[in-house]
């Protein structure tokens, strides 16, 4: 059933407010593979089906047991005796008709034997309660195909997750407490001429009390720099003196007392952060220095092409700074002054994005790709988020498990701390190793029906 765009907007409203329309689009283009429809597995899928992933495929060779039906919300007593992939798919599919559910009645080991490329089609593979050998085999296949692999285990009241992804780039990381990008320490020309249009000493009271704090700080900073050999306030003493100078700028009333000028109070409060030097965050610098950035080829993803373009910008038009973000925080001001100031930043951001665009074009051309391969919209979004770019890289499972590359120092140092959960990691690895050797989990007596882990 094809839901109308409107009804989907309504249904997904609460999550669209988190990741936006393009985030939703990415979700709807995803095809997730779940191996083993255990209680953990189906719970994971439920939370992916509800927000509307494009499709899922459950791979599971097991038959539903009484035990399975006892702890899994997505299996019923009617499912007992049926293939677990099929039974779970039915009850998960009915959660959301926008999603396409599929199942493969096969064990992952068989698929790895006969058709490992089966796994290449997925956006991500989630393996639940998999034995160590299967994890390692599957890990190798997925690593070489650059398909992310999420390994999960639930063992009583202990849960375990391990993400294996070679490289995952994030443009919109939505940081909680981002510092503003106001450039007060490195005012660009258009900003400088904008503040020239203000003369605080001849303004009437109304205008004076409704001048944005950014303008106030910029004005007083200009004066300070001219009186201090071009050096901004650096230590606490100087910043305090700077704040005092601003305080003295507050208008006085007839009795000699201070007028209520909230914008000046804002300026004083923001002096500390306003004087933070504008610089490229170390995390972004690291990305600039990485192999993928410096070696752009026809195979490079648009993330790396845009990153390289931003790097070129930083070293040229940007004079050492990233493209201006363009957004400013709300502040006490009358509408016009605020909007005018906001537009100065917005226009500069557009200008910088255009310069980055030119670099993107020439990079694309240099590797024989059409300039339209990366849209203006994407470049603008990239520039706006340039301080917050992230790249997640994980080690392969093979590296984690290999005796040669095991994280011995990290593990032993954490064992020293009594609060560390490292002991659980080692115990779970031991449990897996036990299973590998004895084909049963510790604590299960052979006389009982063997039913595996939880």
């Amino acid at each position, binding site marked *: 059933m094809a839901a109308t765009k409107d009804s989907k907007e309504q249904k997904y409203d609460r999550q669209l407010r988190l990741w936006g329309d393009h985030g939703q689009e990415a979700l709807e283009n995803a095809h997730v593979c779940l191996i083993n429809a255990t209680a953990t597995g189906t719970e994971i899928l439920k*939370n992916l089906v509800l927000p509307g992933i494009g499709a899922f495929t459950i791979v599971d060779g097991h038959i539903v047991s009484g035990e399975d039906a006892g702890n899994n919300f997505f299996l019923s*007593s009617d499912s007992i005796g049926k293939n677990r992939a099929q039974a779970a798919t039915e009850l998960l599919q009915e959660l959301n008709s926008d999603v396409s559910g599929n199942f493969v009645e096969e064990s992952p080991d068989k698929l790895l034997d006969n058709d490992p490329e089966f796994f290449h089609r997925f956006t991500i593979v989630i393996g639940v*309660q998999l034995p160590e050998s299967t994890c390692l085999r599957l890990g190798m296949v997925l690593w070489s195909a650059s398909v992310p692999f999420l390994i999960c285990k639930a063992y009583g009241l202990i849960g375990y997750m391990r993400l294996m992804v070679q490289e995952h780039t994030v443009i919109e*990381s939505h940081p909680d407490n981002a510092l503003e990008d106001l450039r007060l320490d490195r005012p660009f020309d258009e900003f400088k001429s904008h503040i020239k249009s203000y003369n605080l000493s001849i303004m009437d009271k109304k205008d004076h009390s409704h001048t944005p704090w950014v303008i106030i700080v910029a004005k007083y900073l200009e004066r300070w720099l001219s009186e201090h050999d071009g050096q901004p306030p650096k230590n606490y003493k100087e910043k305090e003196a700077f704040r005092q100078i601003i305080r003295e700028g507050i208008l006085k009333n007839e009795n000699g007392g201070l007028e209520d000028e909230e914008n000046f109070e804002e300026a004083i409060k923001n002096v500390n952060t306003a004087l933070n030097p504008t610089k490229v965050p170390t995390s972004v610098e690291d990305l600039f220095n990485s192999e993928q950035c410096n070696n752009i080829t026809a195979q490079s993803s648009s993330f790396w092409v845009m990153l390289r373009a931003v790097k070129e910008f930083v070293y040229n038009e940007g004079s050492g700074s990233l493209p201006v973000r363009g957004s400013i925080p709300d502040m006490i001001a009358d509408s*016009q002054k605020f909007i005018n100031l906001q537009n100065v930043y917005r226009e500069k951001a557009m200008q910088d994005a255009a310069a980055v665009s030119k670099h993107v074009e020439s990079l694309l051309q240099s590797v024989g790709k059409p300039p339209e391969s990366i849209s203006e919209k994407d470049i603008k979004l990239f520039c706006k988020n340039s301080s917050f770019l992230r790249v997640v890289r994980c080690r392969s499972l093979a590296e984690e498990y290999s005796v040669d590359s095991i994280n011995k120092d990290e593990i032993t140092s954490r064992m020293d701390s009594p609060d560390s959960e490292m002991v659980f990691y080692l115990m779970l690895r031991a449990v897996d190793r036990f299973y590998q050797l004895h084909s049963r989990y510790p604590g299960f007596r052979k006389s009982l029906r063997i*039913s595996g882990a939880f």
Partner: protein
Amino acid sequence: MAEMDEPMVVEGGCGGSCEWEGRWNHIKKFLERSGPFTHPDFEPGTEALSGFGKIDVVDMDTIDVSNLNRQFLFRPKDVGRPKADVAADFINSRVPGCHVIPHFKKIQDLDERFYRQFHIIVCGLDSIVARRWMNGMLLSLLVYEDGEVDQTSVIPLIDGGTEGFKGNARVILPGVTACIDCTLELYPPQINFPMCTIASMPRLPEHCIEYVRILQWPKEMPFGDGVALDGDDPEHIQWVFQRSLKRAAEFNITGVTYRLTQGVVKRIIPAVASTNAVIAAACTTEVFKLATSAYVPLSNYMVFNDVDGLYTYTFEAERKENCSACSQVPVDLHFPPSSKFQQVLEYLTESTSLQMKSPAVTATVEGKSKTLYLQSVASIEQRTRPNLSKSLKELGLTDGQELAVADVTTPQTMLFRLCFTS
């Protein structure tokens, strides 16, 4: 992993579908196996082995299409029906032997006779006010003997809440551990824009929307006299949206969208399935631990945040010595007799430890019970409004006098003691 030889369905109590072989195997492992995680003195009871059989659910809401992205017991065909009813139907049919009783009501519509019957109460409420009310209800059920709480009168309260990718879960033993009011200051204050910004100096699209909601709507009453703005009515939102665009255009402000309009009017908090699943699971685990006494419960507050990677920690929230809800210590109000009664009201609403919404105050003056101020009934509000500008002395109040205060934040009247300062 080996497979079962043959499927089992064991004849049982509810028509043969209630019990089947192996149904409780996983639970048994939790309850029967000793180990480093189980409580040393534990002995499992038979009830614990058969899952939670009787659950009452209270919810005043009906299902909206925007609930469907995360509230997995509801389907498009259920939109408009009471949540409690649909949830009960779903569980009763999916989990044989579990009996859910729905109550399509506000929590405040039920009294202590109702709440007293439960072993554990779990909350997934959508406001602090409601949480405080439930907190107050359970505190009112406590029995004290020689100043000590009778443990059998303690009903544990497990509270969970989420917002986007953040959430928290907490275990409250009323009268024993920190209650909701003990940690009231932990909650960030609600952001309301200053009136002068909204009225004459808008800068953000939100200011324009608030202008239409707070000033224009009451003035124009577009859908009839006395018809309040209903955030769930798309026609109302459309009206606000169009007028907000106009307002924004006057000031060259960009960014007003239908989605933003709805978000501001309804104070929408973003929500996804996964965060709710995490917090629900944490709460469920605590209910399980408390019901079975098999494991050490959370002590007592868990914070979860997966905006960036995954971050979680737990800490023990401490009881506040003079908590207005759970400390049994009467709260003193210190005011000079010349202060206006308005100031007392402001203290009740603005102090971070009380944060009342619209307190109604009565006192015994010259032997008679007198309502000093009450906002919720228009005729009484009008009659008592002049008291706001009268001094405490003028109102006939004396030093050491008791003031009884009722408010939505608590089911019981709170008693304060008025202490005159010079």
